[in-house]
């Protein structure tokens, strides 16, 4: 049995897909809020992905991925059921604390809906009143709504264009929840940094504790390079071993957003290089097929 075998794949849209990977030990150890580092192949890069779910009995973990650059696009193409990842290490990071909050709002934006799900479930199991707020660009991108609804007491969908649920960003959903409930203890938000920043700004004046899960650039994920350092209040923390969860009101989001742009040029280069190579391979295939048929 190959290591890190992909046992299930599901495509949510043109760009988002789910992989369920066999790793019994990790399925046993994983807790909500933790992440893994994946390498697709020997020459690959190490990329961090949040553990969206885990099935201890089946011995699998679930990753939900958005094809944004070279590695995630190549994974979208090559990671089929029965294939294996070259490397998969984790669970990394400190598990999200399931606090004693009695009433929580779990906010997931886009892909962030996946990792916030096990947290919502954990809060539900701990007896909290859970309000789920999820945001997507439009209704075609919506996924896991039924699954999510099942662990929530209230569930609010927001779409940018209003094609599903309420029209607007997740902050609109938070506003709706806050208006109805004066006694919200905690907000947990996972999604693009700009969305988490919005959530933190929305709750700051209300003084509602807000936890966010940061996604800086990482290499090893074990605390030995500092590539993932983030500014939390007046301290520098490494998201991979001190996080990835931090108090959203203390996070310097502008610093995070700037540091995420560090490799924009190289990311573009890698993608172009890959697509060019892919094109060349395709070209070769076609020309050899043409030759083959000519011979016949």
């Amino acid at each position, binding site marked *: 049995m190959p290591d890190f075998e992909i046992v299930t794949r599901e495509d949510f849209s043109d760009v988002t897909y789910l992989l369920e990977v066999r790793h019994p030990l990790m399925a046993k150890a994983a807790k909500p809020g933790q992440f893994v580092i994946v390498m697709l192949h020997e*020459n690959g890069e190490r990329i961090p992905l949040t553990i969206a779910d885990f099935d201890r009995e089946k011995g699998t973990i679930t990753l939900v991925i958005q094809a944004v650059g070279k590695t995630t696009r190549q994974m979208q193409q090559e990671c089929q059921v029965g294939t294996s990842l070259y490397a998969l*290490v984790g669970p990394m990071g400190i598990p999200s604390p399931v606090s004693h909050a009695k009433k929580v709002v779990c906010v997931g934006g886009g892909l962030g809906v996946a990792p916030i799900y096990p947290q919502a479930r954990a809060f539900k199991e701990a007896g909290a009143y859970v309000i789920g707020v999820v945001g997507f660009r439009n209704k075609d991108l919506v996924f896991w709504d039924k699954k999510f609804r099942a662990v929530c007491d209230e569930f609010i969908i927001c779409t940018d264009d209003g094609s599903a649920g309420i029209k607007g960003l997740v902050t609109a959903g938070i506003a709706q929840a806050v208006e109805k409930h004066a006694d919200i203890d905690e907000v947990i938000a996972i999604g693009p940094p700009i969305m988490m920043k919005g959530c933190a700004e929305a709750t700051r004046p209300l003084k509602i504790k807000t936890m966010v899960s940061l996604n800086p650039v990482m290499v090893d994920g074990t*605390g030995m*390079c500092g590539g993932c*350092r983030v500014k939390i209040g007046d301290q*520098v923390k490494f998201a991979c*071993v001190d996080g990835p969860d931090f108090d959203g009101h203390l996070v310097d989001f502008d610093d995070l957003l700037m540091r995420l742009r560090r490799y924009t040029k190289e990311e573009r280069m*890698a993608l172009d290089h890959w697509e060019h190579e892919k094109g060349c391979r395709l070209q070769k295939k076609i020309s050899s097929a043409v030759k083959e048929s000519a011979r016949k």
Partner: protein
Amino acid sequence: MAKKKTIRTIPQERTPMPEQPAAVRARNFEEVACGYHPDDALRESERCLMCPDQPCVSGCPVGINIPGFIQKINQKDLRGAYDILTETSLLPAICGRVCPQENQCEGKCTVGDSLEPVAIGRLERFVGDTAIREGWANIPYIEPSGFKVGIIGSGPAGMACAADMAKAGCDVTVFEAFHQPGGVLKYGIPDFRLPNSVIDAEINNLRKLGVKFQCNTLVGRLFTVEQMTTEMGFDAVFVGVGAGYPTMLGIPGDSLNGVLSANELLTRCNLMRAKEFPNFDTPQPIGKRVAVVGAGNTAMDAMRVSLRLGAEKVYCIYRRSRKEAPARAEEVHHAEEEGVEFHWLTNPVAVLDNGSGGVRGMRCVRMELGEPDESGRRRPVPVPGSEFDFEVDLIVYAIGTNANPIMGQTSKLKLNKWGYIDTDANLATSMAGVFAGGDIVTGAATVIMAMGAGRKAAASMKAYLGIRDPQHPYHSGEDTLFGIDLAEKNFVRVRA
């Protein structure tokens, strides 16, 4: 009888090792020092006086029989030399390259009192390389002891401990978080000082001893040390996870893009092979003008890697003087030859922003040496009003590391006030059966010190498990149960 060698009759000059010219090598990742040709090795072996008191051996942290292996080289018996080396040194091709011999064996060499000391490291490397090329491995017959030993971290400490425990008949598994074993030898030390192929060859020798390497395994998170000693059935555990957690300077501008730790630069380049981007996926854009802060071996590696990645100008910024620089003299010399510009007694006070999140330069202050501090080194103090700006676009911090917090977060291992694992003199931790050594105990040190710690921990583990140490064999007669088999050397054997 051969005439007795004296200081007058031996070759007066140390046999030089062929090297790539500085101008050429500064732009490639090939090894700088090309190694001895057999004639060179023979000539250098002539210089050993075979002195009876063998001061060199006492200078070697693992006590290699140095005159013994040199004599074999002299007799052109390289296999014999390898056999003697492997009685004590497990990784000769590595140690011969990275040990700071000037402070160890060569520092004590008698010849060194009046001439240059015998090039023990180069000779060790020569034998190690020959063994790799010839495919030699000394795999003794090992009687299984029935004990299961877990080793966390596959760096020099873990490798040394694994080898000793395997030779003692234990079932050894080494857990490594990265996708390849080797620790700092792989991600830290660049190919031009220690090629990855040499590390892989030495690791394969450990595999031949029965050591299992399990990569992609982050102990502390995937399972804990406690789980290893209980449900997973390990009789003893060695923690050799290194120091990790790089220190940042804590000056304004630290978080700008273009400021990174030497660990990150080196990991991207050496392990992830960013030097071959985009054929390898990990990028490491290098600046035109790079400043490396610090003057240890890591700093030297970072500077020389930066040059090879295409930097036009590389500066070393160090707050003390050249005399206090912790790097090996040879490394400083190599960096200098390759064109690194050194700025001694200079300390950064701020990183300057280029307006779009990147680095434009660095503001530094001149330093002068004041009174000696607790460590005995003279404390550098800033010269008031001496600030000046430096134009650079990439800044690498090589100013040391702190304890990695993962072990402390996830186990009950007692830590000291700096967060390193607390051990007794025998490297036993606060948990029964759990030993620790290397940088996670001492803070960042050298490869050979980590190897020494791994071996010391192995000796303690053997004592803890009740395995007799073959280093101290006893020959009590026919009914000996444990001991050293002189024909097969240095392992435990049970006679029927």
